[in-house]
């Protein structure tokens, strides 16, 4: 609980600061132009540095996939092509399953759904579902936001918005992703707070991004569903940002600046946080390598020579005993 409170306090201070800043007209050009640019710059430099400069610079000395299914060996035994891939195509499939549908996390579901003596326990199922709900909604919401950055509006953004509002509940239409992302994030946060096991392993750095994401979602939702938001002006600002002609039109409510600033914080925070699992998952050597170790030799760039005990040394040490027991000698 201590670490949750720490994160909540930190986040509270941040949020209060952002809210105060958003009220100041004088700061609007900073929050609306300087900060987003700075945040994107930090994000790009940070992610590239970590991926290419740190992880990428370190070699993969050994090929160590975790095999989660039958290997490909004998022609008449069916290999598990996706859970234990032996080809690049299989690896792509495995990674796609991992990234798109959280294959490994789903294993928790499958094992736990096996009927025990009585009830089947579905705790693992909840984690998988919440993770899917959050990540997919997040992606779709980001893509949907492209309508602010494109003129004319990109076709996919319009289509996504239409699909997302398919149920046509309320005015303005309620987006399904908005509901799912709140549910997903809410569950992920609540389990960390109330489940003793999760609470114990959680760090402040686990609560903080959840609070940040939730606040971004909530401010966005407030603007859409409850506020009177000048969408045209916001779009003008967004297009200005993306075309490098930043402008801050008058008449945009302070809530928008809270939203935008929190997004900037998220972007700048990402490279220094566990959110790096996003690019990281693609590099994981237990997942992104084919289990073809015995067919193709993997080369280790730093394969240093080591001290070994050669046959000659061995024969010399045990010479008499080898001779006495009648085993052949190279140097009789």
């Amino acid at each position, binding site marked *: 609980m201590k670490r949750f409170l720490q994160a909540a306090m930190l986040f509270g201070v941040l949020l209060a600061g952002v809210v105060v800043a958003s009220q100041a007209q004088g700061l609007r050009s900073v929050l609306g132009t300087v900060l987003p640019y700075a945040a994107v710059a930090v994000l790009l430099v940070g992610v590239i540095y970590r991926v290419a400069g740190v992880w990428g610079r370190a070699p993969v000395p050994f090929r160590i996939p975790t095999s989660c299914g039958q290997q490909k060996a004998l022609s008449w035994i069916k290999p598990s092509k996706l859970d234990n891939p032996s080809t690049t195509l299989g690896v792509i499939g495995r990674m796609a399953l991992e990234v798109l549908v959280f294959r490994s996390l789903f294993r928790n579901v499958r*094992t736990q759904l096996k009927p*025990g*003596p009585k009830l089947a*326990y579905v*705790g693992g199922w909840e984690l998988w579902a919440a993770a899917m709900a959050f990540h997919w909604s997040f992606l779709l919401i980001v893509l949907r936001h492209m309508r602010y950055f494109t003129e004319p509006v990109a076709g996919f953004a319009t289509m996504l918005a239409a699909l997302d509002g398919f149920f046509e509940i309320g005015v303005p239409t309620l987006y399904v992703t908005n509901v799912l992302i709140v549910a997903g994030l809410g569950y992920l946060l609540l389990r960390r707070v109330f489940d003793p096991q999760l609470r*114990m392993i959680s760090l402040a750095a686990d609560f903080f991004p959840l609070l940040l994401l939730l606040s971004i979602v909530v401010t966005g939702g407030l603007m859409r569903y409850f506020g009177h938001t000048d969408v045209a002006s916001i779009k003008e600002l967004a297009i200005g940002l993306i075309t490098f002609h930043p402008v801050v039109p008058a008449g945009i409510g302070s809530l928008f600046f809270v939203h935008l600033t929190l997004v900037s914080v998220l972007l700048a925070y990402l490279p220094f946080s566990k959110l790096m699992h996003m690019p990281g998952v693609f590099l994981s050597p237990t997942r992104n390598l084919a289990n073809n170790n015995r067919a193709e030799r993997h080369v280790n760039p730093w394969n240093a020579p080591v001290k070994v005990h050669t046959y000659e040394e061995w024969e010399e040490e045990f010479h008499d005993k080898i001779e006495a027991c009648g085993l052949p000698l190279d140097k009789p």
Partner: protein
Amino acid sequence: MLKQQLERDSEEVLKRWRARILETYPDQTARFLASEKDEFANPIGHAIHRDTRDLLSELTAGLDLGRARRALEGVVRIRAVQGMPPSEAIGFIPLLKDVVRERAALLPQTDELRGEVRALEADVDKLLLASLDVFVACRESIHDVAQSQLKSMVHVLIERANRGKARDRAPSESEAREPRTT
């Protein structure tokens, strides 16, 4: 009357008893033990669930120490390797007394009831003593399995030594094997 009451209430009694047992584990572990129902993903939780049920029905249906010992096997065998002092390892038995008293408090307080509570508590004491036996047997068997592992690790050396002598005397004796210790 108390026994019938406990039998009728067995789900509630078991719930309370199990909750008390789980309290002897750390928070985050207790949650895992309580929630994961798969026997194989959670052998401890499963054993607690099964054995408490069996032990309670022993008490309400009339205690048979032979059967009770078998019911004690699961949980005690597990707790014997969990690094607890003996008092703690078998300490889950007397926790049942607390639950029994709680239930008894709900009934009209008669002399008869008081007698029944005492009798039941005496039975729980018997269970406690039996569980001490089981605990000690388990601890001893840890020694035994270590011993027999040591022996089987050097099986060929021992056999070769024994066989060497045996063969000098009479080859047929080499047929004689040590009885397996399973």
